[in-house]
């Protein structure tokens, strides 16, 4: 029997007992649907997180801070006594983001030199704290405004325009897109190239205004909130803040260490170890976000486990369906064998029937999951998740869709193997005598 005929016969046979096939397909459908939707959910959320993390330009950058001596703190009874020599006023660095919160000692100039001297580090920039009050355009009112101190290492999720040029001497800002309407821009493109005025108050209470050019409009993101400013603007704002008073510049808690290019993971680990020996803790941005991704992977894993349980149940359904089918068709099998159909062909025929059931179940399941997932994505994006721009909750990747179909077809094939080999082993004459 030729392969085409084998396939055609298998498909036709699958539909001979419609109710039974439908029920088995239904079981596979549930598995395929769950598996597709959870995989897509995991992919959607991780892809969102990844884009967000990438917006940090995490490559070749370490975030360094003094190691907080937790054990020493624990041994002390209560808070440490204030010492004018070593203690600094505790002013947490501006800008939300998971990167700031640590309660570490500020880095001194000596610290920065030590860090810069470590092999593999090409440069170090303390994260400067800048505080701004408002922003406006010629025609608009003033709106509260803060500059993300990490914009020096951030690659913005651009809606339009260009990234900040940190080597430029002109003042540049990256404007979050939720400012567009307030500042009376018609569109994001309209904003790019125009000038905005930034107002701030220095430590003496005097106010200053700085004008800067909008070079790009960014989408709001999970980790990088606030506007971005290039190095020239950050330096200007920081020096305006000290109002020319010597020593008023606060030391940074966090510094950004730039790694030499093309370091291997092992080399980066070495740098981290060296830093640790010198009394600093260093993390890549991925390290800091690792916990988030781990949690997401965990949740996806649990959901997928449910899908697998559904599939295992479905596999028994296939075994049962086909065993009944083999039983029912004993004579037919005997007849085909009597007419010279080889055992391997009989095996192939029944296996193909199993695979057909698998393919139908998985295709319907995957299709339904895509419909439901896209619908949910759109509904949620318009409603509760509107603030998370660029998030498509369900991401249907072709590779994983094909993977689901292949996996389920493989499960179907394996389940079909027992009934198929039982059919293949039947002696023709016994099958023909079967009443």
């Amino acid at each position, binding site marked *: 029997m030729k392969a085409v005929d084998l396939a055609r016969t298998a498909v036709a046979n699958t539909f001979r007992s419609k109710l039974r096939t439908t029920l088995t397909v239904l079981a596979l459908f549930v598995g395929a649907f769950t598996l597709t939707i959870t995989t897509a959910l995991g992919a959607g959320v991780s892809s969102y997180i990844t884009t967000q993390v990438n917006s940090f330009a995490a490559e070749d950058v370490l975030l360094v801070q003094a190691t907080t001596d937790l054990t020493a703190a624990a041994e002390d009874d209560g808070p440490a006594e204030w010492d004018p020599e070593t203690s600094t006023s505790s002013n947490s660095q501006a800008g939300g983001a998971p990167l700031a919160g640590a309660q570490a000692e500020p880095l001194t100039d000596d610290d920065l030199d030590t860090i810069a001297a470590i092999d593999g580090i090409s440069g170090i920039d303390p994260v400067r704290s800048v505080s701004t009050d408002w922003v406006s355009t010629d025609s608009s009112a003033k709106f509260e405004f803060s500059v993300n101190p990490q914009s020096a290492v951030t690659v913005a999720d651009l809606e339009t325009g260009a990234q900040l040029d940190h080597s430029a001497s002109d003042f540049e800002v990256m404007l979050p897109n939720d400012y567009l309407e307030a500042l009376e821009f018609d569109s994001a493109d309209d904003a790019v190239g125009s000038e905005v005025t930034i107002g701030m108050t220095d430590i003496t209470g005097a106010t200053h205004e700085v004008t800067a050019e909008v070079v790009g409009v960014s989408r709001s993101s999970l980790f990088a909130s606030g506007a971005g400013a290039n190095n020239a603007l950050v330096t200007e704002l920081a020096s305006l803040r000290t109002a020319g008073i010597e020593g008023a510049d606060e030391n940074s808690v966090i510094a950004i260490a730039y790694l030499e290019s093309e370091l291997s993971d092992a080399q980066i680990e070495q740098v981290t170890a060296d830093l640790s020996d010198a009394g600093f803790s260093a993390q890549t941005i991925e390290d800091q976000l690792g916990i988030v991704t781990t949690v997401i992977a965990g949740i996806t894993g649990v959901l997928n486990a449910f899908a697998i349980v559904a599939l295992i149940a479905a596999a028994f359904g296939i075994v049962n369906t086909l065993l009944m089918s083999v039983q029912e068709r004993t004579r037919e099998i005997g007849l085909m064998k009597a*007419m010279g159909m080889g055992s391997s062909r009989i095996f192939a025929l029944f296996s193909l029937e199993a695979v057909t059931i698998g393919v139908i179940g998985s295709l319907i399941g995957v299709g339904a999951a895509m419909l439901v997932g896209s619908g949910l994505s759109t509904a949620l994006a318009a409603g509760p998740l509107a603030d998370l721009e660029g998030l498509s909750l369900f991401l249907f990747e072709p590779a994983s869709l094909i993977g689901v179909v292949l996996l389920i077809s493989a499960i179907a094939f394996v389940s079909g193997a027992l009934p198929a080999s039982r059919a293949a082993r039947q002696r023709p004459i016994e099958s023909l005598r079967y009443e």
Partner: protein
Amino acid sequence: MAIDDPHPSAPPPALEAVGLSKHYGSSASRFDALSDVSLSIRAGECVAIVGKSGSGKSTLMHLLAVLDEPSEGEVRIHGTDARSLSARALNRLRNREFGFVFQQFFLNAQQSVLDNVTLPLTIAGLRRGARRARALEVLGTLDLAEKASAKAVTLSGGQKQRTVIARALAGNPSVIFADEPTGNLDSATGAIVEDLLFTLNREKGITLVIVTHDDELAARCDRQVVLRDGRIVSDSAAPVLEGVAR
């Protein structure tokens, strides 16, 4: 090749049974369905195997058609011991050389007459077009052309039996094994089917091995082999053959 071939120059018999026995069950409750049966059938011969119910007729036919394995003895096809053939070669033999009409119809009820008739051709690996053409041709000669697309379940008994014969003929076999081909039919329809088989034997030289307990049908065959309790008690051709051999 048998050393005691009665016709050294003639081609070997199409089918030959040598000392065939078939037991069922283990030693204690052993049942001998067939004991030491020897028989040789020339190409183009029409042989009736007759005997009471349970005498081993179907068992013998199945062994001759290599559908079953004997407990003792051997079956030779054109002089070749069937046991020396591979499973593949046996499948090929049954598919290309043999046509079967079983005691029951064994039609796939929900499939069309055409699909039922093309089954051996599909197994043979013929292309769809060629299968159709051949099956329609055979159905035409059996007056079933207009039933080609009807479901097998809708046919009358006689139509079913003719469909079964069409299926047996589709592959252009050189031997047709028919087990009670008229057993399920009324005498008029039975006569039509009988005529059909004898015409094929006469005009195409197809070897017929017909199992029956109908004496009239047996009488129309060239030769009658009578079985009783698994042994041949008479073979109408045997004296002639033995006469030649001596």
